[in-house]
């Protein structure tokens, strides 16, 4: 088990190095740097002045040298300086990440119980009317991307019913403020997790030990709760964890849609404004989050499933 975790950690570090290098080289391509120079120094600079500005700020050195310098600083916790906010990146990124964390917390708190219940109910009697209608419900919700459902919900809840505002302010945890963004992300994610739970539940319900439990006369409901559920919930756990990249994408869209000034909004605006250090930091933070959840999912899977734990 320990060996497995160490091996995973090594792969994750390698992945992180590769990805941060890719982000670094894409952020610092020539046209972006030129735009940055024009923004920072003087809008009406001649080509020569741009070149000398780039030279002065060290953007003319080989890519690998620049990257290793950035990496050296990043490892010690210094992510550079935001050219847009005129502040160190650390002062910009972490508060925004906290705002997004609150949003994510509510999303997961609502999504996980609802989708698991839907999945288990529709999977325990495959092909029944409840199963069919819940399946169609999950298909419909996964088909409507956040930028569509968010807009439709805004029209219904805000323009027609006047219940909530069409924008969400960061850091203000009220029902009125959080309903729209949370509901939008939840709707999209519920369907996917519910479908995975259903598939896993259907598989478990078809196994022999469930048949045995049923044949010895156990009531259906306790077979489901005591025997099926434990095995059926292993796969959804992995799925929820691996959902993280999608969740992150959804958060970016929703934050942009409702003007919620969180991590996703920062990522998008930093990329728009050519704020190199912020984009890099956001990219690395996002990738670290994704990889950490993958690791948790791997370890958790092995932990929950004794067959894997004892065989390795």
């Amino acid at each position, binding site marked *: 088990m320990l060996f497995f975790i160490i091996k995973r950690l090594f792969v994750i570090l390698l992945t992180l190095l590769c990805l941060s290098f890719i982000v670094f080289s894409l952020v610092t391509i020539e046209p972006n740097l030129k735009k940055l120079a024009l923004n920072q120094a003087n809008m009406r600079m001649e080509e020569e002045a741009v070149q000398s500005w780039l030279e002065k700020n060290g953007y003319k050195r080989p890519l690998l040298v620049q990257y290793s310098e950035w990496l050296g600083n990043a490892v010690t916790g210094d992510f550079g300086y935001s050219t847009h906010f005129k502040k160190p990146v650390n002062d910009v990124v972490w508060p925004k990440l906290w705002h997004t964390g609150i949003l994510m917390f509510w999303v997961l708190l609502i999504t996980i119980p609802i989708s698991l219940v839907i999945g288990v109910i529709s999977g325990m009697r495959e092909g029944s009317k409840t199963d069919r209608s819940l399946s169609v419900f999950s298909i419909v919700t996964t088909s409507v*991307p956040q*930028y*569509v459902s968010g807009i439709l919900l805004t*029209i219904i809840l805000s323009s027609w019913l006047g219940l909530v505002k069409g924008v969400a302010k960061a850091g203000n945890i009220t029902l009125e403020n959080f309903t729209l963004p949370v509901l939008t992300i939840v709707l999209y994610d519920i369907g996917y997790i519910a479908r995975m739970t259903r598939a896993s539940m259907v598989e478990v319900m078809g196994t022999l030990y469930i048949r045995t439990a049923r044949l010895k006369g156990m009531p259906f409901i306790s077979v489901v709760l005591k025997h099926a559920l434990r095995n059926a919930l292993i796969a959804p756990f992995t799925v929820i964890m691996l959902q993280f*990249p999608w969740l992150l994408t959804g958060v970016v869209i929703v934050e942009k849609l409702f003007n919620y000034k969180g991590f996703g909004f920062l990522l998008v605006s930093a990329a*728009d404004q050519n704020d190199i250090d912020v984009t890099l930091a956001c*990219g690395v933070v996002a*990738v670290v989050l994704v990889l950490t959840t993958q690791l948790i999912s791997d370890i958790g899977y092995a932990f929950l499933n004794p067959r894997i734990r004892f065989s390795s």
Partner: protein
Amino acid sequence: MESIGGFEIWLIFFTRFIPVWICLAIFYFCLFYWRKKLGLMGRLCDSPIGLIGLFIVLFWIFGAILADWVAIFDAYEQSGMYRRKPPGTINEKVGLPYIFGTDTLGRDLFSRMIYGSQIVLLIAPAATIVAYVVGISLGLPAGYIGGRYDTVLSFLANLVLAFPVILLFYLLVAPGVRETILPNIMAGIFFIFPIIFALMVIYSSFSERQNVLILSTFFILVIGAWLYSGLVFNADPLGIVAIDPNELNIFAAVVFTTSPGVFRIVRGLTMDIKTRDYVAAAVTRGEGPFFVMIWEILPNARGPLIVDSCLRIGYVTILLGTLGFFGLGMEPESPDWGSMINQTRSYIRLVPTIVLPATLALASFVLGLNLLADGLREQSLKD
């Protein structure tokens, strides 16, 4: 200003789509008539959900093909007098109604929705197909041969999959990137795979017959080089094949984000199928690895792959919409659904209906694909 009521709006809507209804009727008649001979497609008739999904998908396909008959106005034509009008307003100059209203530049939303489907229904399936060819050409050997080749490719695939898609798009589909040769390099790498795949097919089928092999290889290389020069370098000597730099950039980015997923599925299926007896029989018979991969494993993996491709086209459609929503890639005038959502969403306080055509079109098309995939999966599991 004159306008028409809700009933008339839907009446005009249905009459404009008459060519599409006719095509749909013919298609469904043929489907039911030859249902016994059509295999998986014919068995879809037993699944109501699959039929509904197919109906929605075909509705948009025929709508895109017959767009010139269905649309009322031009997609780009602006009229200053009719800005942000509610559904049903009549343009008095030409006497035609804006059945879904107009956007902020006075363009007809209904016609833009119809013409937008042409863009979406061209790029999404095309990008999915290329991603599939890339995924299959790399995934089959990875699953079949395994070893170091598999380790390296799986690592690369996981690398791309660990990237948040949105960050990747912001880095890859930016105006700055378009000034570099990066999109061309990416497209150059991806478009080489169809040629490689075609060569793999040819080689595995005709490896015994030398002259057929040489002749067909020659043909594929010539046609491949022609398409390749047009698509990647925008330098088709005949001037037929051309692609906008914007679209090439989007295309390359979408293929880049989609193909690792396909690779993983194909690899998994291959590892499963290669343990079957018929594969062992083919190997014992002395068939080469290419023959086994392409003629034994791939056809037997088609069921899950067809289902997955339906889901994936839907997912790519959502991705394209995301790009449009963030104003990336497409030209700002473009009537594709994502860009339309982006252009109209700031006005929902004034005219709530203004975003409905594009959003509902996108959602319904993806829904149709997902329902179709569900129906296909249900039917393919039956045997």
